[in-house]
C-alpha cells in the first residue's frame, strides 16, 4: 500500500535523481539500500540561535525510529526538518542536506507542498479540523485530487488507525466531539489516508491516558509494517517498546548517539547517553 520509489520524481519531475551522495556519509549516517531519509550536516538556526548541531543520520525504510532527549534539545526541530514544516516558522533557517530517497529536500526545485504529501505528520496535541470525522480523514485525498472511491479510502484509514469500530456509525458527526485519544487516532488516520510513506509523530501520546497510549503504541507497531515512522517521545519505556532505532539528542541540539534501540538501552557508547537513560541527567 505504501508508495515508495517514485517519490523523487513527484518532487522534482525535471531533475535526474542523485541517489549517489556527493560526499561519503559519516559513520552515524551510513546510507544504504533501505535508507529513506538521510541527513548530512543538517543544522538549524532560529534567528542567530543554533538549535541543532550538525546532524548526520540515515533512517531506514519501514522501521520505527524514536527520538529521545531532554526538553529543548531540538527533537521537534529535527522532526520538522523532515517535512519542511520549519518553513512555517519565521526566522528559522536550515543548513546542510536532508535527502529523501536520495533527493535533497532543501534543493530549490523541491516543492514543500508536494513533499508533505509524501510525509505525513501527527502532532503532540490532537488537532482535528472542525469538520466531520469523514471530512477529516478525506482531507488529504481531497486536496491531492485523488478522491475516487473516497469511502473506501476513509474506511481503510480508519481501520488501520484502529478507530473504525468506534466511529463507523457516526462519520458525519463533528470530529471535535471525539475524546482526546480518539481525536489523536483520527489524526493518525488523517495522516495515513493519502498513503504518505513516511509518518512523523511529535509526542503523539503525551496528552493521553495510559489506555489510549497503549492503543497508539500498538498502532505505531502496525504502521511500521507499511510505513517509515519517526516518533519523538519523552517516554523512555515507550521508545524501548516500539522503536527499532533510537536517536538520542542532548541539550544544545547535539545528536549524541544513533543506533539500534536494543543497543542504546543495553550498552550505549556514550556515557552521557547512559546517564540520561538511567535518569542521572536531563
Amino acid at each position, binding site marked *: 500500500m505504501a508508495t515508495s520509489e517514485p517519490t523523487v520524481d513527484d518532487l522534482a519531475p525535471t531533475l535526474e535523481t542523485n541517489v549517489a551522495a556527493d560526499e561519503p556519509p559519516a559513520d552515524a549516517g551510513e546510507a544504504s539500500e533501505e535508507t529513506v531519509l538521510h541527513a548530512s550536516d543538517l543544522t538549524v538556526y532560529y534567528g542567530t540561535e543554533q538549535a541543532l548541531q550538525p546532524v548526520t543520520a540515515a533512517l531506514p525504510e519501514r522501521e520505527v525510529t524514536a527520538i529521545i532527549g531532554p526538553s529543548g534539545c531540538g527533537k521537534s526541530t529535527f522532526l520538522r526538518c523532515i517535512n519542511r514544516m520549519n518553513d*512555517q516558522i519565521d526566522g528559522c533557517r536550515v543548513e546542510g542536506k536532508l535527502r529523501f530517497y536520495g533527493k535533497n529536500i532543501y534543493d530549490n526545485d523541491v516543492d514543500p507542498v508536494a513533499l508533505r504529501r509524501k510525509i*505525513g505528520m501527527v*502532532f503532540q496535541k490532537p488537532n482535528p*479540523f*472542525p*469538520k466531520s470525522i469523514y471530512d477529516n480523514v478525506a*482531507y488529504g485525498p481531497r*486536496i491531492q485530487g485523488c478522491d475516487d472511491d473516497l469511502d473506501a479510502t476513509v474506511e481503510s484509514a480508519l481501520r488501520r488507525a484502529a478507530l473504525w469500530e468506534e466511529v463507523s456509525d457516526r462519520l458525519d458527526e463533528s470530529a471535535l466531539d471525539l475524546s482526546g485519544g480518539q481525536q489523536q487516532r483520527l489524526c493518525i488516520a488523517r495522516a495515513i489516508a493519502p498513503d504518505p510513506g513516511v509518518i512523523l509523530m511529535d509526542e503523539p501520546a503525551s496528552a493521553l491516558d495510559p489506555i489510549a497510549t497503549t492503543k497508539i503504541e500498538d498502532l505505531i507497531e502496525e504502521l511500521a509494517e507499511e510505513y517509515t515512522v519517526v516518533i519523538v517521545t519523552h517516554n523512555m519505556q515507550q521508545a524501548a517498546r516500539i522503536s527499532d532505532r533510537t536517536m538520542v539528542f542532548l541539550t544544545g541540539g547535539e545528536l549524541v548517539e544513533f543506533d539500534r534501540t536494543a543497543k542504546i538501552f543495553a550498552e550505549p557508547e556514550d556515557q552521557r547517553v547512559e546517564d540520561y537513560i538511567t535518569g542521572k541527567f536531563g
Partner: protein
Amino acid sequence: MAAEDGSQSTVDAITGDVTAADRRRNRRVRRLLFGCAAITVLTTVAIFFALLDNAFSFFYEIRLYEFLLGGEFSQRVSVWEFVAGTQWYPNHGIAPAFGILPLLAGTFLIVVLAAFVAIPIGTATAVYLSLYASPRTRAYLKPTLEILAGIPTIVYGFFAISFITPVLLRGLLGPFGIEVGRLNALSAAIAVGIMTIPMVASISEDAMAAVPDGLTHGAYAMGASKYQVAIGIVIPASLSGILAAYILAVSRAIGETMIVALAAGHSPNLTSDPLAEVQTMTAFMVHQVRGTSAVGSVEYQSLFAVGLALFLITLAANLLNDYVKRRYREEYR
C-alpha cells in the same frame, strides 16, 4: 498549643477588618465603573425615546409624551403610507407624499453596491494579511489600512465627486457610450465601499488570526497549499467573525451620511439603476435639517420618522451580528 494559635491567626487573617475595608472599597469601585458603563446604555435608550417621541408627532401631530398626558391627536400620515408608499415628496406644497420606500431603496442600492466593493477586497486583504504577507509587508499594510479607516468621510465624498465619477466612471463607461451624471449612486457606493474595506479587512483578519496554529499547521503538514488552507480551513473556522465583519460593515454603510449626501444626489428615486441619482435616508435627513421647514411641521417631523427607521434597521443589523457570533461560536475549541 502552637498549632491552634497558628490556625487561629489564620482564621483572624481571613475574617479580619482589613477585608471589610477592602470589600467596601471594592464596592465603591464597582459602582463607579458600573455608572460609566451605564451611560452608554442610558444614551441608547434616551436616543430611542427621543426619536420615538418626535416620530409620533409626524404621524399623529402631537408628541408621544403629550399623547400619554392625555392630549388629543389627529392623524397626519398613516403608518402604512409611510412604510409602503412609493413616493417621497415631503416638501411638496400641494400634494406631499410620505412613502419611505424610495429612501430605503436608495440606501439599499448604495449598501449592496458598496458591499460588492468592500466584501471581496476586504476579505482578500484579510486572507493576504493572515496567510501570505511576510512580516515586513504586514508591518506596512496594517498601518495603511488604519489610515484609510481614519480618513474623514467627507474626504471620501469629495473623492467620489472629483475622481470616481469624472475620471473612473466616465473613463471606463464613456467609451461604451454610457452617460454618467454628476451625481449617481454608483460613485457614492464605491466610495462607501472603499471606506468600509479596512473594517471588513481588520475584523476578518482578527478572526482568522484567532484560528489556532494547530489547525493551519495540521493542514500544511497534510500537503495543503496556502490557498487550500485559506479556503478549506481558515475561512470556515473563522466564518462567524468574518460574517460579523460583513454585518458591521453593512450597518456602517447604512448609516454613512457625508459621502452619500455629497455624491449620490437628492432625488428620491425608486430605482435599481446604479447610475441614477438616489437619495438615502441619511442624505435626506441632512438635506431636510438644513431646509426651511418649521419645527413641528409634518415635513420637519418626517426627519424623526426616517431617523427612527434608520435606528431600527441598524439595531436589527447589530442583533443579527450578535446572533451570528453566538450561533457559530463553537467552530473550534
